[in-house]
């Protein structure tokens, strides 16, 4: 606990600077918040601040906001936010609230990073635990990340969810499981999907229990934790019912998220999928979508039992991947400029679909690395990046993929390959079955090396390309150029996939079926 206090003194300056920067942006660019509010990169149909304002307006004028198709957010946000002065006349208080939420998230991230859970959990200690980043750096990266700032200015409501998730994780690590479960129930109440994080969070909290009042049985601990989530959640629902006078908020908030009926474009891929879906198969694919998303929870929790934090990270990242992953360029050309023709559209769709498959490869590589006990710093890095990217600027995730994660993989993969011997010795000491005591000679395959390098370059290229498209979309846009680039991208992606297959083939050299 003393670490936390010291931490706050350390970071007070950082938080102050972040707050000043945000308030300065709010003050000196008064049109910026409204501009960002309507940006798809910042807000989704469910979390948009403009819709929140509409909900507040209806609520304050005694019209049920759930008896309409605009407001899909949790009922308790309404009375809390209507306590603030009207955002259109006195926006300062709303700004202040969002700045405080950002700082609270950063504080939680700081605590997570300082705890060293990413480097050394109860059941697993990384070989390079000394190379982790300090909490100060992580909090700074989060707070001065342009996407976090843009999200703060755009004021979507998912920053509250993110803040609650981060506090749940931080509290689980610092040994207060009940507080963690309470925070998670708030997150689940606000946007439902965080309930998927319950199993890994329980594991994390179980591993980090304070020795004073420990519950030794995992089953008993799980029971208590589930109860600790359900009780506040039911209380929140009951309060919502009392507030709105009916249960109609449930279909209008969680129902809309579950059935994906609001197809307003966002940076996700799914809205487009469900536009084009045949009517008779729509409900089937909605089912597949949710089943798919939730199927990872169990598998990952069991397989990476030793690193529950990594499970939480991967789950959060896959939520982003499946609910919000698409370059903004496509959206701009089609919706805004309206200049995409059928051919161009075809190429862009294809490219975006393939692009969506690409991070999958990245994830597999990440997971691969995690499973091989290799990347400690990388994991911390990935974790921090991902957690900060959930803070609303969901598109930032793709940028992180482009900018940060891919190079890490290259570096870490190489390190892993170099550090193979160490790992082998560890596993030998642990006496893993099927591991002989001879020292293998591992050579980095040049094809693997080239593929990884190539993928990084490709991502850099794509980043520049999408910024090019965005800049063009605002002015006169030449569909042909984009068409050609998209076609080129498709070809690159195809090469990529081939490269991936080649990589898999090489990797299989190291991977054998578990014979036991």
């Amino acid at each position: 606990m003393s670490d936390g206090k010291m931490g706050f003194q350390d970071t007070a300056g950082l938080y102050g600077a972040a707050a000043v920067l945000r308030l300065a942006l709010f003050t000196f660019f008064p049109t910026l918040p409204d501009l960002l509010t309507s940006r798809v990169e910042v807000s989704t149909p469910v979390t948009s601040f403009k819709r929140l304002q509409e909900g507040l307006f209806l609520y304050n004028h005694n019209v049920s906001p759930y008896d309409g198709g605009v407001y899909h957010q949790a009922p308790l946000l309404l009375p809390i936010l209507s306590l603030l002065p009207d955002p259109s006349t006195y926006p300062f208080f709303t700004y202040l609230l969002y700045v405080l939420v950002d700082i609270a998230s950063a504080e939680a991230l700081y605590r997570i990073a300082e705890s060293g859970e990413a480097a050394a959990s109860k059941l697993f200690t990384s070989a390079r635990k000394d190379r982790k980043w300090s909490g100060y750096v992580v909090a700074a990266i989060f707070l001065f990340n342009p996407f976090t700032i843009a999200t703060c200015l755009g004021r979507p409501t998912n920053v509250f969810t993110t803040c609650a998730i981060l506090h749940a994780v931080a509290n689980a690590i610092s040994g207060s499981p009940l507080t963690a479960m309470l925070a998670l129930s708030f997150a689940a109440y606000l946007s439902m999907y965080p309930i998927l994080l319950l199993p890994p969070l329980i594991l994390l909290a179980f591993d980090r229990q304070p020795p004073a009042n420990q519950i030794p049985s995992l089953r008993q601990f799980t029971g208590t934790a589930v109860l600790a989530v359900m009780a506040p959640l039911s209380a929140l629902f009951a309060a919502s019912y009392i507030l709105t006078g009916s249960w109609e908020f449930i279909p209008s908030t969680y129902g809309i998220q579950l059935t994906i009926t609001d197809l307003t474009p966002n940076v996700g891929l799914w809205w487009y999928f469900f536009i084009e879906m045949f009517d008779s198969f729509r409900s089937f694919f909605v089912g597949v979508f949710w089943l798919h998303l939730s199927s990872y929870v169990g598998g990952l929790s069991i397989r990476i039992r030793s690193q529950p934090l990594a499970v939480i990270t991967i789950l959060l990242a896959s939520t982003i991947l499946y609910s919000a992953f698409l370059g903004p360029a496509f959206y701009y050309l089609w919706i805004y400029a309206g200049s995409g023709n059928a051919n161009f559209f075809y190429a862009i769709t294809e490219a975006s679909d393939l692009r969506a498959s690409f991070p999958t490869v990245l994830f597999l590589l990440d997971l691969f690395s995690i499973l091989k006990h290799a990347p400690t710093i990388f994991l911390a890095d990935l974790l921090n990046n991902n957690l900060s990217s959930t803070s609303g600027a969901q598109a930032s995730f793709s940028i992180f993929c482009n900018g940060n994660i891919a190079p890490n993989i290259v570096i870490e993969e190489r390190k892993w390959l170099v550090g193979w011997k160490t790992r082998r010795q560890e596993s030998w000491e642990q006496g893993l079955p099927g591991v002989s005591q001879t020292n293998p000679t591992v050579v980095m395959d040049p094809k693997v090396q080239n593929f990884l390098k190539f993928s990084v370059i490709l991502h850099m290229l794509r980043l520049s390309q999408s910024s090019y498209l965005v800049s063009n979309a605002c002015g006169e846009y030449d569909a042909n150029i984009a068409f050609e680039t998209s076609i080129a991208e498709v070809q690159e992606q195809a090469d990529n996939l081939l490269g991936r297959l080649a990589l898999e083939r090489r990797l299989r050299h190291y991977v054998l079926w578990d014979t036991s």
Partner: protein
Amino acid sequence: MRSFLSYLIPLLFLVFDVFASDYHEQLNLKPLPQSSLLASFNFRSNTTLTQFAAHNFRYFPRSLGQILQHVGTRELHLRFSLGRWDAESWGARPWDGTKEGGTGVELWAWLEADTEEEADHKWLTLTNALSGLFCASLNFIDETRTTRPVMSFRPEGDHGPAIDRMHLLHGVLPHEIVCTENLTPFLKLLPCKGKAGISSLLDGHKLFDATWQSMAIDIRPLCPPGQECVLQIEQTIDMVLDIERSKRPRAGEEWSLDQLFGKYLKGTCPLTDPDVPPVCIQVPERRDIFSTGGAVEIKNPNGLSRCYQISPERDFSMILPRMPRDGDNPKTTADEHVQPGTPLLYAERSFTGHGQERGGVQSILTNPSPDTEVEFVYMESLPWFMRVYLHTLKARVEGTSGAKDDLIEEIYYRPALDRARGTQLELRMRVPPASTVFLTYDFEKSVLRYTEYPPDANRGFDVAASIITILPSTSPNAPPTLQKTSNLRTTSLLLSLPTPDFSMPYNVIIFTSTAIALAFGGLYNILVRRFVGADEGPEEVGGLRGKIALLVAKLKSVTKGKVD
């Protein structure tokens, strides 16, 4: 028996004679500036409620009457409209705008029902029945296009205590194109069915070539004091003809009725009230008019209109010759047509915003009167895919000294529900004298499922006209036009939504599913494996040789087991 009938038949005629004056028709012509002519056809017939209840339809069309009885309709208003009334040059609207609809088809009715569900069910029956009767797509007035206006419409008839059980439902089809197939059933409802009387002038080619036209059917029960209650059906056709265009290929300033309508008026309808002159024209006294033989001109003492009593048997037409501007009896423009009256309110509505995602609506409402305030109800019935942000609704006034904040007095708002109902917005507001109010709000365009787009998706979606009901002034010294309710409607709007590519649902589904399969397959693959060094596993020999070696090894183990 025969003798009995011979007594009965004169008796029947006697009964009929009592009601003979219960049908009347009149054509009102009004030359407008810019060589336009407003022609208002009005047909009205009454039947007593007891006769109606006993299925004795006389002048009342049986086909329509049976539908009304079946669904318990107390009052019905149906409108078919095309074009735009140019208030800037044509002035005030005919009938104070009460007999016109927004572009397309508009229907509102008061239905007798105990519950809202029953009313909805009856409404569905009514729209489907009327759809068949009028050859219009009225059956497309589903729940997303139906509203229940609260402030805009008031029953016109006398309903007595039944008013408590009445439900008002209103539906619009702005995309419906009114055409000849709607006129034919309209004429069939008339007692003379377009064969005689003023309805013989009506012809689809001319009517739907008009700059603006509106066909209206109003059915309402009326209880004149001291008499039996009657059910009145009033059919109206208003059209503004471009004189130059209608009399092509002939040119010149003079025009005649048969040139404009393409045929002569074939006598009078024998069932009509003989006291009501069938044709009237509103022109200044100094305007020369020649009529065909057998017609009697009756001048109105105010000098602004004259009527014609025409022969029941002979064809009728009239000629308005070119006005000599010089010579013995020079005429001025003032003699050519009566100056149109100033409307109480000008209204126009347009889309603002840019891009395909966000938009806004701006309505400009101008009160031309220098001293009278206008109070009205502004009603919008918007499709659900326009997501209106009511908190952005603003009213800004220009022109009057000292801006007023309380322009909007009352708001009734029913937000849209996706795929279930549209937005209904009613505002009671007022415009101060000689000033303009700008009413603006933002909306967001939704993206629909690809099956929800019409075949011509890139044309855009029609948004129904907003309906403005000017409320009667409460002050006793208001001008006479403000003493009663009047209406006006803006034009309908064309909303373009972003469209997906309709040709490739397969591609999208296949590619996305591939992405899922890659993700899931890869993840599953990695989750169920254990990682060991390459040299730690059994020796792997590829190709056919390897398979054979594996087979041999298996066989060996089997034989070994047997030996053991």
